């Protein structure tokens, strides 16, 4: 039995959809479009919060990205580290996931803080390794930071570092920056840092969590960067160019096949329904 055009519209093979999507994605990769990017309020809040920190403040970074989501976290993390290193601030980073300290190290080697900003490891910033337990680990770090680590990420004893001796617990920190991939991350962070110690939290998360984390904006979470778009916006605000703008620009056309396929599927559905009704009506 021959199928109507509407039924054919609803049965395009998956491989064709994939191929067309990849072709549309490739166009701005090879020929960048260079479209301007409007800055959103959470990114402005993120930037302003760091800018307004008093000199000498210590920031704690709960570092929990996934290296598989490299493209999501590369630009916001790079822009954040450059912003922190360019200010008279200090920071302690520790891993809530196994990949957090690894990405931290890779990105810092690219920045070269000592050469670029004159910042010294152990005095201006410190990286601890992964501590399992997520919320339990955050509670442990917040309660008594010295109890959770004896060595830093590189395997050296932490007691030799001046910054380690300035930190005792949550009261030593002025701000929390939480980097995570889970959409319930702000629930956890707000419980452990805000509810108990009153610390505000800036979040870096994947783009998929923007619609959930925005719940906490702006009172508990004065700012947030979600995915490469957030990273690109911070790159513009902080005047530290990075990979975010290129990535965000390159994603411009990738959704067109998806939107067209949605329209086509709905045309097919409505047409099929209309034909069925017609068939039932005619005897």
């Amino acid at each position, binding site marked *: 039995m021959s199928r109507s055009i509407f039924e054919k519209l609803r049965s395009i093979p998956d491989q064709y959809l994939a191929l067309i999507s990849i072709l549309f994605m490739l166009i701005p990769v090879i020929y960048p479009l260079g*479209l301007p990017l409007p800055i959103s309020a959470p990114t402005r809040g993120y930037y302003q919060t760091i800018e307004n920190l008093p000199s000498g403040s210590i920031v704690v970074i709960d570092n929990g990205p996934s290296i598989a989501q490299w493209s999501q976290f590369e630009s916001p993390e790079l822009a954040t580290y450059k912003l922190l290193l360019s200010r008279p601030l200090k920071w302690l980073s520790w891993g809530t996931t196994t990949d957090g300290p690894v990405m931290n190290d890779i990105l810092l080697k690219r920045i070269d803080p000592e050469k670029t900003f004159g910042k010294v490891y152990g005095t201006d910033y410190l990286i601890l390794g992964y501590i399992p337990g997520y919320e339990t680990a955050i509670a442990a770090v917040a309660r008594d930071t010295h109890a959770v680590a004896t060595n830093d990420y590189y395997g050296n004893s932490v007691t030799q570092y001046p910054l380690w001796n300035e930190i005792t617990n949550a009261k030593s920190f002025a701000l929390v920056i939480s980097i995570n991939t889970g959409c319930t991350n702000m629930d956890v962070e707000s419980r452990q840092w805000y509810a108990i110690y009153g610390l505000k939290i800036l979040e870096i998360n994947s783009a998929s969590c923007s619609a959930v984390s925005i719940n906490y904006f702006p009172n508990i979470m004065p700012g947030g960067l979600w995915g490469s778009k957030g990273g690109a916006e911070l790159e513009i605000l902080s005047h530290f160019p990075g990979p975010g703008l290129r990535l965000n620009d390159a994603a411009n056309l990738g959704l067109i096949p998806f939107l067209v396929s949605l329209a086509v599927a709905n045309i097919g559905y409505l047409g099929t329904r209309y034909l069925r009704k017609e068939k039932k009506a005619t005897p």
Partner: protein
Amino acid sequence: MSREIKRRIPIGLISVITAFFLIEYFAAPSFTVIHSVKGELTVWGALIAGFMLIFGVFILLRHHFLQLAVRHAGWQDKVCSIVFFAAFLAFLAVGFSTPARVAGANYRWIYQNMYTPTGSAILALCFFWCVYGGYRTFTIKSWESAAIGLGAVIYMLRLLPIGPYYIPQLAPFGDWVLSTINVGATRGGTIAVGIAALILGFRTLIGKETSVLEATKE
């Protein structure tokens, strides 16, 4: 006595620890002993969590070992298990070969150039599954599906620079929709989850929440 040791004491432990943490939350800062004990218990939790992770790894290793040695699996499954063990042992050897462990240059190199592309590509496949799924199921059949579709299209176009470039009003409108209608809905969900968490905590406190221990056969 056997039942007490095997079941009732662990359930009692959960209740006691939960009650202790609740008391600690409301205790004044001058009660330093209570706060110190809480801090030490959280560190214990982090240490036990590390063992649990390694335990999970053992389960996976056992699965692949049985696949290779015992089960009547196809040659493709056995080859995949061999590759699994090869990758596992290679990364383990490189990782433990230096005191810096995963911070070592060699480990970083293989992790960046071998694990990262596979992990990213597996995640990237999800885009195509979303496209296939959306194409097959995202039809406007009711008010609810229309609401999903409307929300999806508005925010999708807002997220990429191309949307605000051709429709400048999309940027402020998309942000407004995100921070009003969306926040209303997610806030309701967050509060509901919070209430559920409180109920779970209360059930744990009175020893009713035993599902955690059910997985172990007596």
